[in-house]
């Protein structure tokens, strides 16, 4: 017993010392607990109490992040790693979650829902807690735990508010797929742990273990691992769940699911690439090859299937699959210390995607569904909305003068630089596929102005422009996208 005493006190000291690292996450956790209490006891008296707690939780976590800049630290025995990259990532996540919170509140304001909306905010807090953890760890165990936290929260978000059969079906599909992938990932992780005896993927011991591991088993483990992460990121061939789920879930939830988890997982991936690609051994080559193939297939699949979509939400689902492929390309070209390119693209992507879904939600409430066909000739009746929506579409394609173009341009530059340094054929292939899918994406994003402005609608339905939270916020984002397109240094110099 005596032998352990000094160790215990040291351990406790270490834990107390490193708890400062987790301040934003602790704030989220406290907000989560408070929101449960409030939704149970106070919601009847004070209508928006849970919503307010969630908003305060996000804001306070955001504020707690600010003093942590320029102070990279490790804590909890290397389980938690904080650097500026993760802080920016978390800021993006918190910002997007906050917007989602407002979005949910506005979306359900005029709807008669049998269930309590208040609980949704608690789950949103939990999801962003998990995502936040994912950005600050390099430990597989913590990665698994945070991915599961996010997944379970997402299942609930999709299923909890299901109003009809289709939405319930989407939720069930999501849970089944998700659990299977989680199990595979866990199995992969256990294999990795068996090879290396260490769960920190940046550690020398882990990499050493991988180098000496038998090739076939190592491949199996890595494949299993990617299956789990791939599910969350919805890259091909693990993307099949996402269109159904995106279409079935309430629009604010879809906006959240299609945007925010990507940021966290991309940050994880870029850390993984940065530490694994350095070696010349089998597993590095395998991971590189896998990621290249996945990026290419994902870009192609996402963009080509999006061509055939009639429903705007499904279209956005495939578009986000395509963008995942593009982000993966960015991650592949991720060079340590060059985080701003990736962060810029993600920030712009968040703005574009959120505002696209805000517009979809607004239009859904105006015309009853999200089919592109029903936008026919609405451009004249809803000019404020469709001018903005078309601009967002243009930004999603990546045409100037929008921020989408600058993001694409920076990523192309990154990849090109790597190509001319290494002459690796894979990079060239990525560039070509990236360029071709950009042209392909033009077809479906331009469907928005095509139906809204180019086609004429003979029927005289009375649809009038109203200024709601959704289209005003979306328009604000739209302006931001254009301004960042002309003066990208506004954001890029911040990200330095």
């Amino acid at each position, binding site marked *: 017993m005596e032998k352990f005493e000094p160790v215990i006190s040291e351990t406790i000291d270490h834990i107390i010392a490193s708890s400062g690292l987790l301040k934003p996450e602790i704030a989220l956790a406290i907000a989560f607990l408070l929101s449960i209490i409030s939704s149970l006891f106070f919601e009847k008296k004070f209508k928006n109490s849970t919503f307010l707690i969630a908003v305060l939780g996000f804001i306070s976590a955001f504020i707690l992040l600010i003093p942590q800049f320029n102070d990279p630290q490790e804590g909890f025995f290397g389980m938690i790693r904080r650097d500026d990259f993760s802080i920016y990532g978390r800021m993006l996540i918190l910002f997007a979650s906050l917007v989602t919170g407002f979005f949910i509140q506005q979306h359900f304001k005029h709807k008669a829902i049998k269930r309590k909306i208040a609980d949704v905010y608690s789950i949103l807090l939990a999801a962003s807690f998990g995502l936040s953890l994912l950005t600050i760890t390099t430990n597989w165990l913590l990665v698994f735990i945070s991915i599961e936290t996010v997944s379970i929260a997402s299942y609930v978000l999709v299923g909890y508010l299901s109003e009809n059969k289709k939405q319930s079906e989407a939720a069930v599909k999501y849970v089944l797929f998700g659990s299977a992938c989680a199990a595979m990932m866990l199995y992969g992780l256990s294999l990795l742990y068996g090879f290396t005896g260490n769960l920190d993927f940046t550690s020398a011991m882990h990499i050493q273990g991988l180098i000496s591991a038998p090739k076939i088993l190592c491949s199996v483990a890595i494949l299993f691992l990617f299956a789990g992460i791939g599910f969350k990121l919805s890259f091909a061939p693990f993307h099949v769940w996402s269109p159904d789920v995106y279409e079935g879930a309430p629009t604010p939830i879809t906006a959240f699911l299609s945007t925010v988890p990507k940021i966290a997982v991309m940050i994880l991936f870029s850390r993984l690439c940065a530490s694994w690609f350095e070696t010349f051994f089998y597993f590095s080559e395998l991971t590189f090859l896998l990621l290249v193939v996945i990026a290419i297939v994902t870009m192609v699949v996402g963009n080509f299937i999006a061509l055939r979509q009639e429903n705007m939400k499904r279209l956005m689902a495939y578009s986000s699959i395509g963008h995942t492929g593009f982000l993966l390309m960015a991650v592949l070209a991720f060079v340590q210390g060059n985080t701003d390119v990736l962060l810029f693209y993600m920030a712009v992507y968040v703005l574009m995607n959120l505002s696209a879904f805000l517009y979809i939600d607004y239009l859904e409430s105006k015309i009853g569904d999200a089919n592109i066909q029903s936008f026919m000739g609405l451009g004249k009746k809803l000019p404020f909305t469709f001018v903005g929506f078309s601009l967002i579409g243009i930004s999603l394609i990546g045409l100037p*003068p929008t921020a989408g173009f600058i993001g694409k*341009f920076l990523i*192309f530059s990154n990849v*090109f*630089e790597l190509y001319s340094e290494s002459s690796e054929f894979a990079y060239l292939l990525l560039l070509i596929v990236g*360029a071709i899918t950009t*042209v392909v994406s033009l077809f479906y994003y331009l469907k928005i102005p095509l139906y809204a402005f*180019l086609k004429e609608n003979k029927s005289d339905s009375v649809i009038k422009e109203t200024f709601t939270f959704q289209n005003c916020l979306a328009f604000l984002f739209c302006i931001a996208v254009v301004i960042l397109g002309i003066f990208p240094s506004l954001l890029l110099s911040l990200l330095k």
Partner: protein
Amino acid sequence: MGILSILLLLPLFACLLILAIPSSYRNSYKYIALGFAFLQFLVSGYLYWQFDGSQTGINSVSGYQFVEQLPWLRLDLGSLGQLEIDYFIGIDGISMPLILLSTIVMLMAIGASWNISKSLKGYFALMMLLSTAIIGIFVALDFFLFYIFYEVMLLPLYFLIGIWGGARREYAAIKFFIYTLFGSVFMLLVMVGLYFSVINPDTGAHTFNMLHMMNPANYVDGSFFATAANSFDVFGIPARMVGFIILFIAFAIKIPIVPLHTWLPDAHVEAPTPVSIILAGILLKIGGYGIIRICYSVFPDAAVQANWWIGLIGVVSIIYGALNALAQKDLKRMIAYSSVSHMGFVTLGIASMTVEGISGAMFQMVSHGFLSAALFFMVGVIYDRVHDRYIYNFRGLATLMPKFTAYLAIAFFASLGLPGFSAFIGEAFVIIGTFNAELVGTGISRWMALAGSIGILLSAVYFLWTLQRMFFGQTRLKGGEEWAVALTDLSKREQLILFPTIALSLLLGIMPSLVFDQMNAAVVNLVALVSTHL
């Protein structure tokens, strides 16, 4: 703010003004647009007057005039180095005539838009935005800036064709967009590649400055587009050749060359008359301008090797376009294909790489600019009146519309290269240049000059045959009496638009030095730049 910036920002200001004025004053939009277009014309006319034709331009800043350079983007991108993008504009003998041409054609297009009645606000705002983008393309000396204007130009055109166009407008609009974007996305990749290969000698940072890209000394050794000892290749083709081919295709789509021309008949036919005028008068010239300004100047070594093929493409475009024009039954389609044929001379002239050839190509661009604009305008005149332009539905129009017939006949004769008109000078110089090219050893064969002459012959055939079919003989119209009443002769406004173009064509045909003097020094410099690699 310099005078070029004023030229560039005038239409943008007009665009914002139109957007700001409420729709209840919608009748004022066309006057605003016309006023600003006229102002722009005056500014460019002043520029032309002030322009010193003896300056060489092309690859040295000192040879450019009215230069403005402001840092626009300065970003430290870590391992990618400092990102250096400038607001860098200036003009030389290559861009000056085209800028003046653009403002004239723009003025014509606004004049032709007088009867547009559908969503006026959007229409004139987009027109003005398009005008900004066009001027921007011609003045930009920074590749990044050029690219931005090049892409921004697409959006207004997409909407102008798509909303105000004819029956198959959606198809034509997207086809036009896809063709151009396909070229320009790959152009983006080449641009990025050039960026990493070129160093600004003054600051040591990578740069998008086109003039630095033209100097082989600025290339980093071992970079992707390095001029010396470049070992990169893509699918077995040397890197610099790949860069050249990609840029050439991107611009050749605009010119357009056969077989990348198929967007053009659709876009021209479906577009409303003013947009057809802009497409034929200005847009096609952007292709030729891009090839001269970027392809040949930045990749002269690759250009020299690819020369014979480019000449061949020019010849094929001339002959194929002419044969197609011969077979058309729709007047607008006929003129669209005649554009393909006439722009083939531009390609051939550039490929000849002789001073005569390139001057001829430039002159052909200017001449074709307002002649094709006049032709499309005249098709619009008929179409406005009876909503038909099928050649066989008209006969003996000369008795109904004598003034119109006179204008059209002059425009036809001018276009087919009758001596005394501008097209003759352009085509003759191209053919002389091509013929002489063998002496200089640029790789162009003599028979290409011959093929060019056959193209001129064919153009005489299709123009005269059309004139005969539609205008001479007994009056016989498909619409009968109704059409005969509707087909009134040219109005004052229409004559006001047509007369200057015909007059200009005649003036330049008699005094080609008006244009040649301004660009000669630049063309000589360009030929010198390219021929060091022969």
